[in-house]
């Protein structure tokens, strides 16, 4: 089937399908007559997996690793477990960074509430600096 066929079966956009083919996650053959990409049912299965894994928070690189392992035969479970542990660690760090930033933003807003006229005389940049110096 062609790209349109894959789109119809999976609900992915044509751009997504082409992108995954370009980065090697999908490996369609070229139709020798017209050079169009030709996909098989196996590609559709792969794509369904990719979309699901993206939803779960795996990166494209993670997914590439899992597909590669699976292509070699054998269960991909130990690798998936390892990747999930790594991702959870990263997410914890990301979460911390976001929470710190949120706290900083809240403090700045609270401070601004208390000083309605933050640029009193001559619109000095130093007053502006003082206002963000939380």
């Amino acid at each position, binding site marked *: 089937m062609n790209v349109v066929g894959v789109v119809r079966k999976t609900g992915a956009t044509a751009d997504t399908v082409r992108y995954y083919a370009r980065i090697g996650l999908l490996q369609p053959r070229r139709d020798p007559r017209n050079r169009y990409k030709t996909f098989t049912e196996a590609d559709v*299965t792969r794509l369904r*997996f990719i979309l699901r*894994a993206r939803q779960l928070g795996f990166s494209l690189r993670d997914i590439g690793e899992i597909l590669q392992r*699976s292509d070699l035969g054998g269960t991909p479970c130990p690798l998936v477990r390892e990747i*999930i542990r790594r991702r*959870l660690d990263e997410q914890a760090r*990301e979460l911390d960074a976001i929470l710190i930033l949120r706290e*900083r933003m809240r403090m700045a807003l609270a401070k601004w509430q208390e000083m309605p006229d933050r640029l009193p005389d001559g*619109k000095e940049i130093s007053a*502006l600096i003082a206002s963000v110096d939380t």
Partner: protein
Amino acid sequence: MRVTELARQTRVSPHAIRFYARSGLLKPDKNRSNGYKMFGQNDVQRLRFIRMAQCLGYTLSEIAELLARLEEGDNPCERMERILRQRLEETAGKLESLQRTRVAMERALACLEKGDWHVADVEGLCAHFQAVVASG
């Protein structure tokens, strides 16, 4: 003063200072005889503001806009506050999606550690992924 002196005074790297100058956030004069960038005391102030605003999550283009307003004698405070409030709302959405992903991943990890998933290929994996996402 030259880049190195400004860097020393503000503890911002010369590399970053040159980048801000290139992006138009700082506007040094050029020394005619040697072509070096020359910064003034005003740039020390601007640089402090840029760094603090970045710490609060403002993007460089937002900072440029705020500085431009200030230069034109326009009070940028209201705009500053509006951007920050919007950013806070976006943060709430980001936290929520991160939390959702986290719960699904933790559930998947628990299953994997118990050895509940007997899959031979990605098709089998896909079905389990679907289940942990759906039960969220």
